[in-house]
């Protein structure tokens, strides 16, 4: 190394050696975050007010009027789309109903999943089942903090509700809710359940998808990055591009006519991948590829009825983060939606979507062509602020 370079290293080290951050840094960051959210909420409200004034002045009807979906000003629901929203906050889990009523159902939980008439929730003591109103609490799997199979950081219930997959640190586990038995599945990336006994996972090198048996931990190769169908699909989205260098599974949509597998492909990037594209392979053998613009970050999630959401973002500007809504079999994504960086939930009918950005949830209609029913909704954006972390939208 040249003289100036070694001098530089020493000088840089010495120049900052005694610097320490203030003790209230985290509180200051969280305060700044709340202020930014408040400014965003005020700006959104101002924009909505401005639009309403313009609409009134030019005499146009409100978009919601005349389509039979309640968004009337008197007694209007706090959110359209029906059903009820499950939130988690510092007090635990709570339901929010369209009439604004909030019902707390279980304290001490921040993660949960609805399965039919049952709610499965987990915390650092274990996985619990309960009814949707929080009654009949039952400890299905106990966790011992500090143990190898200990506390789950995130979890996902199998389609039949008999198992839960979860991480402790970076190791994937599966637990049987009937017996409490846990199986260590290793350091793979969980991409979704294929059935009650089979998990779709990505290998740590991003080179292939695996099927992992949740009862035995047996792994088998499922799909490779070099698969010609994947390479063709990727290069259809990114013409003249080299073959993709990494893949992760977006999971299976198991809904009858919309059965499909989603795969995210990307050129190799140092942290978030570059030129990503979502490939959806349907049960009938058709392949669809989506590559929304400015995607430095890329996250895929399934909704009901073959609906899906792709979240993208470019650079460090929160204003550039966008969500796109699509549906299996559709060639087009929705127009970019500037919400949803932190979470998504579709209503059970697949006609509305709730998008979370920190403490704000924005609810908007699923527009055609993604909305394929005859009862597509039309309404103004609805904002829910400071309700907590949106977990799901249930019937």
């Amino acid at each position: 190394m040249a003289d100036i370079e070694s001098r530089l290293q020493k000088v840089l080290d010495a120049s900052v050696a005694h610097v320490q951050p203030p003790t209230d840094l985290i509180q200051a960051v969280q305060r700044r975050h709340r202020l930014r959210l408040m400014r965003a909420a005020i700006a959104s409200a101002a924009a909505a007010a401005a639009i309403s004034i313009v609409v009134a002045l030019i005499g146009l009807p409100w978009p919601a009027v005349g389509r039979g979906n309640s968004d009337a000003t008197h007694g209007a629901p706090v959110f359209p789309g029906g059903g009820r929203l499950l939130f988690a906050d510092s007090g635990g889990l709570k339901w929010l109903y369209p009439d604004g009523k909030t019902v707390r159902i279980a304290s001490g939980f921040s993660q949960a999943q609805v399965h039919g008439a049952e709610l499965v929730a987990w915390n650092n003591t274990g996985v619990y089942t309960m009814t949707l109103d929080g009654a009949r609490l039952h400890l299905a799997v106990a966790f011992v903090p500090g143990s190898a199979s200990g506390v789950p950081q995130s979890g996902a219930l199998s389609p039949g509700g008999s198992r839960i997959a979860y991480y402790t640190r970076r190791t994937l586990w599966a637990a049987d809710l009937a017996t409490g038995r846990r199986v260590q599945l290793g350091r793979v990336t969980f991409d979704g359940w294929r059935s009650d006994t089979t998990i779709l996972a990505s290998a740590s090198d991003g080179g292939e998808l695996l099927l992992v048996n949740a009862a035995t931990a047996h792994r088998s190769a499922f799909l490779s990055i070099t698969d010609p169908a994947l390479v063709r699909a990727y290069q259809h989205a990114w013409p003249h591009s080299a073959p993709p260098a990494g893949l992760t599974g977006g999971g299976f949509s198991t809904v009858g006519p919309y059965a499909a597998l989603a795969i995210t492909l990307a050129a190799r990037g140092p942290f978030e991948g570059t030129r990503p594209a979502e490939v959806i392979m349907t049960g009938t053998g058709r392949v669809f590829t989506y590559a929304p613009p400015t995607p430095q970050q890329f996250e895929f999630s399934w909704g009901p009825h073959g609906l899906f959401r792709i979240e993208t973002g470019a650079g460090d500007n929160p204003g550039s983060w966008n969500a796109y809504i699509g549906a299996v079999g559709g060639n087009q994504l929705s127009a970019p939606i500037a919400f949803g960086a932190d979470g998504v939930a579709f209503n059970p009918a697949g006609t509305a979507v709730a998008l979370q950005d920190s403490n704000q949830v924005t609810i908007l209609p699923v527009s055609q062509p993604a909305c394929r029913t005859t009862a597509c909704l039309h309404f103004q954006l609805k904002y829910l602020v400071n309700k907590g972390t949106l977990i799901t939208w249930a019937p």
Partner: protein
Amino acid sequence: MDAREAFEQFARDRSAHLLRLALMLSGWNEAAAQDLLQTALERAYGRRWLLFRDEASAEPYVRRVLVNAAIDWRRALRRRQEHPLDAANRLSLQDATALVDDRDLLLRALSALPPRQRAVLVLRYWEGLSDAEIAATMNCAVGTVRSQASRALVRLRQQAGPDPAGSVNHSQMGEQHG
């Protein structure tokens, strides 16, 4: 551990390192460094559900925000024709005969570099990143990183002078990294 706890753990573990990085990127302006760090951490906090699922993804993101925010901050100062009281300016106010040693000369020369060139040197020689990682952080080509580093090193040699210990070796200028 939920996303908020993971963020707080990350901030506790890494904020000293990140503040040091911010201080160098800002030209040793302490107030600006604190502000840059809060900006970067606030953005990470806003994306905590995405960033803290994977232990490896948060720090590159925060580093990237820091670097770009520092460059933007310097540009904004230049547009407003403001001159922060950073290391280079402070040195000029003090007793030059007592302070003009190797460290001060180099720090003053570093502070006087354009922000992108300073960022490249800090990321390469203090963070120990490869040129490819620096290119990804700064959203530019690897060749741009190398040319910026080369130009910056030439300027440092010109302004900071030879090594007081006398071990001058100009033949390795533009050493390849990554």
